[in-house]
């Protein structure tokens, strides 16, 4: 059974792990490293619950092999808050009641964070298309879109 020794930077920490070829980055995060904040909703890249940021880009961690992340930088939901300080997106999701069951939330937060870095002043339509790869069955998306727009405004303000 082939195994791979991998070293990746995860939430800023150099992390070593061993995995089989068939284990995805999602499997590694959840079952090897116990970073269970990254969720498994479909395993086929259709729901976005497992979205993490890899080398600065959002990816479905279920569609990345653990074996291929050697040398990569990975950001997961566990690394989003800085100490006890929530990221503006996390804060706005709470303020706008933009979550219900919350299982899609980590993936949406990662997707939104990475999107706002590219497009800090998006329209509602742009936010909707950016989040099209993240299914939410509870909220109807309304409050999520509002929270992302409001977080974007605050982040623009903070950047001035």
């Amino acid at each position, binding site marked *: 059974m082939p195994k791979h020794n991998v070293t990746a930077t995860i939430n800023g920490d150099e992390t070593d792990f061993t995995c089989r070829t068939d284990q995805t980055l999602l499997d590694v995060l959840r079952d090897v490293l116990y970073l269970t904040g990254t969720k498994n909703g479909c395993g086929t890249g259709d729901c976005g619950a497992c979205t993490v940021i*890899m080398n600065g880009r*959002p990816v479905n961690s279920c569609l*990345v092999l653990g074996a291929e992340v050697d040398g990569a930088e990975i950001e997961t939901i566990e690394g989003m808050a800085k100490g006890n300080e929530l990221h503006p997106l996390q804060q706005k999701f709470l303020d706008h009641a933009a979550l219900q069951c919350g299982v899609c939330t980590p993936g949406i937060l990662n997707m939104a964070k990475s999107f706002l870095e590219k497009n800090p002043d998006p329209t509602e339509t742009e936010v909707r298309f950016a989040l*099209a790869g993240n299914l939410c069955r509870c909220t109807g998306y309304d409050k999520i879109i509002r929270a992302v727009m409001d977080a974007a405004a605050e982040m623009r303000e903070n950047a001035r």
Partner: protein
Amino acid sequence: MSDLNYAAPETVEAAVGLLAGDDTARVFAGGTDLLVQLREDLREPGLLVDIKRIAETRAVEIGADAISIGAAVTGAELGENAELKALVPGVVEAVNLIGSDQVQGRATVGGNLCNASPAADSVPALVAAGAKACIVGPNGSREVAVEDLMTGPGQTSLAAGEFVTHLVLPKPAARSGDAYLRFIPRTEMDIAVVGAGVAVTLADDGTCTAARVALGAVAPTVQLVQAAADVLVGSKLDAATLEKLAAAAEGACSPIDDKRGTAEFRIQVAGVLAKRAATIAWQRAEG
């Protein structure tokens, strides 16, 4: 229990060696199709040969006469290439339609092509743009027109040990434009029910001097529709031309009923999309 192995060669030669040396080996690029197929036990390879660490597969080069796109360049990377987007907007848009932004960070042009789905979004646009796939293998390298690479659903003309390193597109002439449109039941996250790619070149008076029209998801492979191109060449984009174009497109369809749409619907929509894509390509050619 899984005996699946993984290798990430850094040269074309090493990749060919691995692929040729193991008949259970499979090329692994973005993985957005392959990992799903592995998960669903649709494929059971013994070795994944990751081609993303090979420089040739990762480069985009725009030369005097030709554009070269590495097979492992991702959709997101193409979308960020403003020069490429200005030259072949239809191709870039088509690649960017594949999946979500998360998928775009991984899905590659070569992977979309070699997965050999008749509904692959990039393929009709690449065919319309006149792209060729550059292939290496144990017996050296060769080029094949994109429309000839796929031989059936999930099937390509690649021989054992061969893989696509990059694609070459002719640099569009002046007053050229291309466009790709697809129909899906939602606004995102679906596989094309129909796809239409159109590329045109216009004379100064607006008459079409060259055209290529390709349709996806309406036959076992992506179709280059010569009859549709013939309608466009020599015409100006008037209502009568568009209707003839639609009829030619519909005539090229031999679709099936499946979970994504009926044959009847696909034929009709192929005509609609051909018209709409031609209109956009025309506008782009006129600048």
